């Protein structure tokens, strides 16, 4: 086993084990069972901001950005800017809304607006989507460990899943938040040092990288604005799919629900946005630099950036970088595994048990479900390695319709039949667009639709249906944040 792998594993054992032990002792001393999904709803500004920022730093940021910038140039940073816009929507919109209503899951919120059946339907789809994300995060954990160790991807994924399960099972979201805080410091410290270090070890420094692109008439690769085609084809598409699908994703909402109050969520934008957004600069620089050095460029976009880091930097810095990267991947895995387990315990079991589950029973159930999810994800990843970016985009498409019925139900009006029709129609269209021959038939009639991804289809269908059906529907209930609903609540309170 090589030194880098041993040190990275040792780092994670100390951080995860140490914090898990400390939290377990504190819980025992206080004699209270901390809710795994919400952590007692007392996360402060630092813990909440960092957790929100790191939850959305996954494989696509670490390895995907190196690959994208190698091919497209600095315009790849729009993937990071799309996440900055996402942080704005979560911190100023969806996050405070779910916190204000005191929900623990998105299906619970949907259920409060549209009834129990809609809660069960969205819980089933939500759990399926997030489980899909867990399997992909398992694969990327495997890629990270495999890159350091040289092990086969399948076995590396099994080891990654074991670490990921340990990361979250010991203490739920509270454990994850503390580990995130430590990992954020290590990760940012190491990428800043690595960025400066690379200036001295790159053959002609960062200026040489610029000269290479200027000399090869590819100056557009140095600009975040790229070319008009790239700006529309890549940047706009990234903003579109990231914002609509991720702003109602259970992982981000789980963080919001654990915040101390709405003020913490709103203020955290000023920390979460730069912590999340600035991470992308380092992988983009690595991808850009790797493409200019023939030795690395020959390896192709997937491996060039990662190999440059391992080859040019000293071992201690590689260990710190890999520990930080692995921390980011583990955090996304942990929040992804916690999400379906929470949905299962609260929305599928808890909601259908008279009186709900006791805190102890719920905690045990969540821990067991996380374990089962980890084993299943490891098993699936051992045998299958689908394209991560394509699979993630497909999974996001299922969540887009929830965004529109959620906004309508909070601010416009509520109607269960309309909400049901919107989500089912969007999901049927999503399935149809996923079947090659059907998609080919539609494209032959509407050639312009060939560029549309599944997330675009579900978002367009859901948006149009939400606007049209709500405009013509009768017997609507008032929106949850409307004055009429608040007045109704006050009247009911006074009547009692």
């Amino acid at each position, binding site marked *: 086993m090589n030194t880098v792998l041993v040190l990275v594993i040792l780092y994670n054992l100390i951080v995860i084990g140490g914090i898990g032990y400390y939290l377990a002792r504190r819980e025992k001393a206080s004699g209270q069972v901390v809710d795994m999904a919400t952590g007692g709803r007392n996360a402060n500004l630092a813990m909440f901001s960092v957790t929100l920022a790191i939850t959305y730093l996954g494989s696509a940021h670490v390895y995907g950005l190196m690959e994208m910038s190698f091919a497209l140039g600095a315009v790849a940073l729009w993937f990071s800017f799309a996440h900055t816009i996402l*942080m704005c929507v979560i911190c100023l*919109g969806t996050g*405070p809304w779910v*916190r204000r209503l005191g929900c623990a899951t998105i299906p619970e919120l949907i259920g409060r607006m549209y009834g129990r059946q809609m809660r069960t339907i969205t819980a089933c789809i939500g759990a399926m989507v997030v489980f899909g994300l867990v399997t992909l995060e398992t694969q990327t954990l495997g890629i990270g460990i495999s890159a350091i160790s040289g092990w086969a991807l399948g076995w590396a994924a099994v080891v990654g899943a074991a670490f990921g399960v340990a990361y979250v099972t010991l203490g739920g979201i509270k454990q994850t938040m503390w580990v995130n805080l430590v990992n954020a410091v290590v990760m940012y410290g190491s990428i800043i040092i690595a960025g400066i270090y690379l200036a001295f070890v790159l053959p002609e420094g960062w200026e040489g990288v610029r000269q290479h692109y200027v000399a090869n008439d590819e100056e557009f690769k*140095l600009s975040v604005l790229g070319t008009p085609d790239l700006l529309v084809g890549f940047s706009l598409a990234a903003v579109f799919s990231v914002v609509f699908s991720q702003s109602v994703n259970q992982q981000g909402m789980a963080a919001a629900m654990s915040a101390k109050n709405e003020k913490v969520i709103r203020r955290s934008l*000023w920390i979460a*946005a*730069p912590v999340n957004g600035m991470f992308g600069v380092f992988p983009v620089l690595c991808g850009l630099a790797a493409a200019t050095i023939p030795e690395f460029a020959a390896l192709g976009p997937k491996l060039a950036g990662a190999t440059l880091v391992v080859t040019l930097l000293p071992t201690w810095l590689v260990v710190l970088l890999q520990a930080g990267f692995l921390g980011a991947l583990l955090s996304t895995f942990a929040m992804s595994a916690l999400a379906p387990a929470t949905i299962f315990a609260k929305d599928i079991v808890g909601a259908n048990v008279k009186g709900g589950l006791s805190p102890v029973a719920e905690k045990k159930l969540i821990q067991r479900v996380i374990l089962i999810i980890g084993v299943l994800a490891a098993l699936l990843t051992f045998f299958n390695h689908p394209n991560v970016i394509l699979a993630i985009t497909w999974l996001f498409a299922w969540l887009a319709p929830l965004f529109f019925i959620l906004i309508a139900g909070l601010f416009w009006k509520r109607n269960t039949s309309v909400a049901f029709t919107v989500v089912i129609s969007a999901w049927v269209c999503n399935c149809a667009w996923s079947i090659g021959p059907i998609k080919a038939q539609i494209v032959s009639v509407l050639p312009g639709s060939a560029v549309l991804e599944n997330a675009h289809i579900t978002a367009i269908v859901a948006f149009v249906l939400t606007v049209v059906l709500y405009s013509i529907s009768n017997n609507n209930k008032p929106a949850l*944040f409307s004055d009429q609903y608040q007045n109704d609540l006050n009247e009911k309170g006074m009547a009692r």
Partner: protein
Amino acid sequence: MNFALELFLISLGMIYLIVIIAELLSRIPKFFGEKTDGSD
């Protein structure tokens, strides 16, 4: 200016520009929902 530093500063600027625009938009009543005093 160093190319890496330039990209770093441009990104930081873009991110804070997005955040400031979002903060300003959120102050328009009903755009991002009512503002609360956080005392929930």
